[in-house]
């Protein structure tokens, strides 16, 4: 099918349409999973039971509760039918716009993240265990024998900068929400959020600069590919091995960017109610919460992509495993792609779990401690890390 419609390659169009849609759905599902784990994981680690009541009644007195997963559904329905309470005097446009500023960047930045390597559909379906799929194998073998694509929505040359640019927008969400609500608590929360996010963005950016120096690129695809190479013949060049200090700085800064425990000063309930979204209710509040959950996932994705090799499996190339001791295990193309997908998801799930675990284990920082940590510890460390990296790279160490 060499169909061109108005100059658009329809094959590419449908590929990326499905890919973008799939990633969009993935992020939303992960948001739902996060809001579930916020309840259930916290309960399990605190020796509680957690959400288990909301259920769909089934015949014969059975109930479909799915370990509390139905609670999310109940939440969504509740928030939809709740009164949409607004402040008496507020900036209507900004008030409504703020939600999108908070929500969209979290989903948008995933566009440059590769979820798996290059896929060749014709070869992909040519595997014994995928023979049961009707129509598609024949279609690709006949019409598009050489077609291939990356499992990445946008392969931007400035991928990493794109992420930072988009991430920088989300601060507007907090600021606008707090300012337009016409509420002192909201304003205070917004100010806290803004200063915190801007402070930690500096450390976060500096911590990733080291990687850029090592891999000599800001293209996310290339960074992931570079991480699959081996240093000294046996160690995968994962960011965490190249830049261990930067990983910790990035972790702290990313959690702070995300405004989660222990850095959830902008939403400190005991001090300023709900911070910048105090005056939001119903589904609008739900969207703020949802954006936060999606951001957790995005932090996990960033950690995976920049420090833990992204979708790559150690020692695995496009046609199989090349172990350092010389063994070669051949794998079919489909197996490789599936392994890559699994690898990516396992890593993301693990870091999301870890972030939740930390969120439910740690107390909140004091605000001066937060600023102290950001400016006086993380920033100097990040700069020192960068300088050492630059020197080593310049000397040809890596």
């Amino acid at each position, binding site marked *: 099918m060499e169909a061109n419609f108005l100059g658009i390659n329809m094959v590419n169009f449908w590929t990326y349409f499905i890919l973008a849609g799939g990633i969009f759905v993935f992020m939303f599902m992960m948001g739902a999973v996060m809001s579930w784990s916020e309840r259930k994981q916290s309960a399990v*680690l605190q*020796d*509680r*039971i957690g959400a288990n009541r909301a259920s769909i009644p089934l015949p014969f007195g059975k109930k479909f509760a799915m370990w509390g997963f139905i609670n999310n559904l109940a939440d969504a329905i509740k928030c939809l039918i709740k009164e949409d309470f607004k402040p008496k005097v507020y900036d209507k446009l900004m008030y409504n716009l703020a939600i999108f500023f908070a929500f969209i960047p979290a989903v948008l930045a995933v566009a440059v993240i590769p979820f798996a390597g290059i896929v060749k559909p014709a070869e992909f379906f040519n595997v014994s265990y995928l023979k049961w799929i009707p129509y598609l194998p024949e279609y690709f073998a006949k019409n598009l024998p050489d077609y291939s694509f990356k499992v990445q929505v946008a392969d931007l040359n400035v991928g990493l900068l794109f992420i930072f640019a988009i991430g920088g927008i989300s601060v507007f969400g907090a600021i606008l929400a707090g300012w337009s609500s016409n509420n002192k608590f909201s304003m205070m929360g917004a100010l806290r959020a803004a200063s915190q996010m801007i402070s930690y963005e500096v450390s976060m950016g500096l911590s990733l600069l080291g990687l850029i120096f090592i891999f000599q690129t800001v293209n996310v695809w290339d960074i992931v590919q570079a991480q699959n190479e081996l240093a000294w013949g046996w160690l995968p060049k994962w960011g965490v091995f190249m830049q261990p200090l930067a990983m910790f700085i990035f972790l702290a800064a990313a959690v702070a960017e995300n405004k989660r425990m222990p850095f959830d000063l902008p939403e400190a309930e005991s001090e300023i109610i709900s911070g910048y979204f105090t005056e939001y209710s119903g589904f609008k509040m739900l969207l703020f919460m949802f954006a936060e959950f999606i951001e957790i996932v995005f932090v996990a994705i960033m950690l995976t992509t920049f420090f833990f090799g992204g979708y790559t499996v150690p020692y695995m190339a496009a046609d199989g495993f090349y172990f350092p001791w010389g063994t070669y295990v051949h794998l079919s193309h489909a197996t490789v792609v599936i392994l890559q997908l699994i690898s990516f998801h396992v890593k993301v799930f693990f870091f999301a779990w870890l972030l939740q*675990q930390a969120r439910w*284990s740690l107390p909140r920082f004091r605000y001066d401690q937060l600023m102290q940590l950001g400016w006086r510890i993380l920033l100097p460390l990040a700069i020192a890390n960068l300088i050492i990296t630059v020197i080593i790279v310049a000397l040809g160490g890596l």
Partner: protein
Amino acid sequence: MAYQIPNFPDMEYVDRKKRGLTIQVYYREIFRGVWITTKHFFRNLWKWLTFRKGGVVILYPEETRADMSPNNRGRHILVQRSNGQPRCVACKMCATICPAQCITIEAEESEDPKIQKRPQVFEIDLSHCIFCGFCVEACPVDAIRMLPETSELVGYDRFRMVYDKEKLLSWHPTVSDDVVHGYNPNA
């Protein structure tokens, strides 16, 4: 190291240890904390996965506490006469002594001239009640008692926690003598 403060013998300065880098970067303590919660997480998760209960809390109403003290008195009843009428004479002693002021009584004339007075309305607002048992002690005719049970204090609004006369009388004694004949404190 502690310094005595002159003129204040009870007080002293305490020099805290300067926080070193390991504490300042927080990571060690964070991982220690997360390690503890992680242990709990996996232990409880394993219990859930093997079809056991992985929490110390109680799944009310399927489970109830077994460790309730036998001295616990958590439910009010109105003692009945042999004809099922309350023994209460609406003297309002309980309402008067009640520190939470949760008892509402309205009296009416009884058909029986020997009894004369009986409650028309007898309500205990259990959402206010503090279960002190003063009402039981104040009652001159042993008409109100508290049982070693828990009142199932659940409801969609607070008005469901108001127990009226019918509800308080709905308790049926297993040993009828106990209710029909008065409790003699001197016996």
